[in-house]
């Protein structure tokens, strides 16, 4: 199927020049990497699927540091996407210092970020999409949005996602699915869906009273002369990972039986190709590919994994197209006699500096951001440390947020959710309001202040850890570990619930956390209704502004038990 040459093509252009040390200058990188290189693709058959997912409302190009830890457990250990750094490079044959090495790993991250610049920007992605539609013919291309599109920025928060809705409309997608979309609340979600010219699909969302479908499950399209069914799957654990009270009438879950029925129905209705547009998370979809029969392609999102090409699982191609607009996923399919006989796939990294922005999209982005320009660009501090979030255990952005909550709410400990969204600031960068909201913009931002006993804290950590490291992917909810301020612990990901977390230590005194003692804890993003406290973005604006220059000490409070 896919040759390594296909996706190494443009990596090798730059690899020859780097031999990394001191790196390639930005100008040289830009000269050696071109828009045409990015679009170069060995086209196949009569169908092209384009996949964008987990954009988290990032309209502008961003930095996003790939994780240092992305641990897989049980049968999923050590295989994609559970490879990071050098292991990722060698598994996919990427040259250290190359454009793809920078897009996919944290190796030499800061140097390469300065060399290759930002990725993403919906105006750049629009250029790529238009070029591919022009090359293949509009009738051969489907554009599918994997969700987490309407949340994650200042403007999305302030406009109730109208900014994203208006920008996405220009791209004319064929369908979308959702997760964080639901945190806008039932009413707003339905209002937007009614205004959209493409369907919002969810095979696995039913109403609580009658267990009847709330959304369409399937969209049928004729593409390049073949009949294609797109079935949608919303994030199955949305009412558990996010506040259920915001969409109290809807029930989610994997609902595999219903999914199989929908796949069978699509085939009965003449589908030659069945595509699952999924917000399940990678390992869930890897397992699901074996459990459900009749799906040709799963376009997977939620866990923010970016894998250079589709992975074949029992004759289902699973493509994971990253997050924050960094990549555009592409799969070409050749269909003969109602069967997929050939395919080729790639993640196209959206190198912002070498792609000409699409003028229409650029104008639309400017329009939605204009009313907020002065606030978005307002500088509140400078950072000396690389600030990032993504990783199984902690990142410097959350270290900062945990410190801020303890200080501003006078707490002994703090908890910050293991979200996988949030962009990166390079050392020496200003921190703007735009940057701060890229970490914190959401609809349940209150910072609570509560007393938990040591035993309760242990239970919370074990519970969240099981959502991440349960050996059965169907029990994984797709977030990272909750971040803890003021406390250290040891984690054994391969153990089972109740025995993963040990050596909980109160860092202030160096003493063991006392199961019977109460600790004052501050935290944000509680899923409970009626939480009182200041919004995380207001609290952190104050905390960061007060400091003027941000420096984060190395944090080794979480120790990993390796097996």
């Amino acid at each position, binding site marked *: 199927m896919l040759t390594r040459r296909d996706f190494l093509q443009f990596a090798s252009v730059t690899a020859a020049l780097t031999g990394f040390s001191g790196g390639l200058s930005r100008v040289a990188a830009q000269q050696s990497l071109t828009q045409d290189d990015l679009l170069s693709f060995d086209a196949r058959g009569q169908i092209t699927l384009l996949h964008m997912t987990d954009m988290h409302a990032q309209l502008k190009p961003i930095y996003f540091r790939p994780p240092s830890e992305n641990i897989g457990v049980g049968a999923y250990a050590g295989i994609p996407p559970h490879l990071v750094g050098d292991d990722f490079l060698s598994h996919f044959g990427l040259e250290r210092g190359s454009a793809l090495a920078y897009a996919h790993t944290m190796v030499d991250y800061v140097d390469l970020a300065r060399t290759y610049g930002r990725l993403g920007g919906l105006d750049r992605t629009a250029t790529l999409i238009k070029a591919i539609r022009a090359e293949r013919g509009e009738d051969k291309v489907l554009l599918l949005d994997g969700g987490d599109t309407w949340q994650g920025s200042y403007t999305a928060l302030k406009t109730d996602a109208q900014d994203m809705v208006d920008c996405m409309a220009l791209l004319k997608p064929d369908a979308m699915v959702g997760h964080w979309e639901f945190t806008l609340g039932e009413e707003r979600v339905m209002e937007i869906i009614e205004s959209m010219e493409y369907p919002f699909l969810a095979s696995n969302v039913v109403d609580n009273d009658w267990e009847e479908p709330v959304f369409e499950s399937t969209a049928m399209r004729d593409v390049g002369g073949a009949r294609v069914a797109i079935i949608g799957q919303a994030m199955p654990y949305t009412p558990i990972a996010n506040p259920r009270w915001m969409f109290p009438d809807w029930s989610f879950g994997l609902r595999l*039986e219903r999914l199989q029925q929908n796949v069978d129905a699509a085939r009965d209705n003449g589908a030659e190709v069945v595509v699952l547009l999924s917000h399940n998370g990678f390992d869930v979809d890897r397992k699901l590919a074996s459990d459900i029969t009749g799906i040709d392609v799963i376009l997977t999102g939620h866990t923010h994994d970016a894998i250079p090409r589709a992975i074949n699982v029992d004759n289902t191609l699973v493509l994971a197209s990253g997050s924050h607009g960094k990549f555009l996923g592409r799969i070409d399919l050749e269909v003969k006699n109602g069967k997929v006989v050939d395919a080729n796939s790639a993640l196209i990294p959206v190198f912002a500096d070498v792609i000409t922005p699409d003028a229409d999209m650029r104008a639309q982005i400017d329009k939605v951001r204009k009313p907020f320009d002065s606030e978005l660009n307002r500088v509140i501090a400078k950072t000396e440390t690389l600030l990032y979030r993504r990783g199984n255990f902690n990142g410097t952005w959350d270290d900062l947020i945990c410190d801020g909550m303890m200080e501003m709410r006078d707490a002994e400990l703090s908890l910050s959710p293991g979200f996988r969204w949030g962009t990166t600031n390079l050392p020496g960068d200003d921190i703007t309001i735009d940057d701060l909201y890229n970490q914190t913009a959401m609809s349940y931002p209150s910072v609570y202040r509560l007393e938990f006993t040591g035993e309760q804290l242990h239970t919370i950590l074990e519970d969240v850890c099981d959502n991440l490291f349960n050996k059965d992917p169907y029990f994984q909810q797709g977030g990272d570990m909750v971040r803890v301020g003021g406390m250290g612990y040891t984690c054994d990901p391969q153990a089972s619930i109740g025995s993963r977390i040990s050596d909980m230590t109160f860092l202030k005194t160096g003493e063991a956390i006392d199961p019977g003692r109460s600790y004052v804890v501050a935290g944000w993003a509680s899923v409970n209704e009626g939480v009182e406290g*200041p919004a995380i973005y207001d609290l952190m604006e104050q905390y960061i502004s007060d400091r003027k220059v941000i420096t984060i000490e190395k944090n080794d409070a979480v120790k990993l038990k390796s097996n």
Partner: protein
Amino acid sequence: MNTSKREFLGKTLTAGAGLAVAAFLGSTRAFAAAEDVQKAIEEFAGGKTPGEGVITLNTPEIAENGNSVPVSVSVESPMTEDDYVESVMILAEGNPSAQVATFHFTPASGEAVASTRMRLAKTQNVLAVAKMSNGDVFSATNNIKVTIGGCGG
């Protein structure tokens, strides 16, 4: 912004917030002992050892709301005068009282299908036990996870 630290400190809350910690504060009640569950099955089954298959037990992998977890059960049977499903019992092993519901059928029921909602105190096994008109007994077990929630990516 000129908000002072004092405003952010606010008052210490006494209830209602946080990761859904209430789930852990509660009950010291004893949960159904394994032998109670065993005894309930024996009584229902008339001493027969339940076989596998025949029953489809549908539950969520993870409960969205531990106070109201949907459960549905269907039992394969021709449902004729000679061969039908008499009753189906649902048990929640980890609840203070394990018995959730018992459904009774007759051939006139047409099919042995039932659904209800149950409260689950914690992560546990839920069992369905079906008794056929000829005295045969079958069972099926699902594990349902009850979690704190929050912190999802």
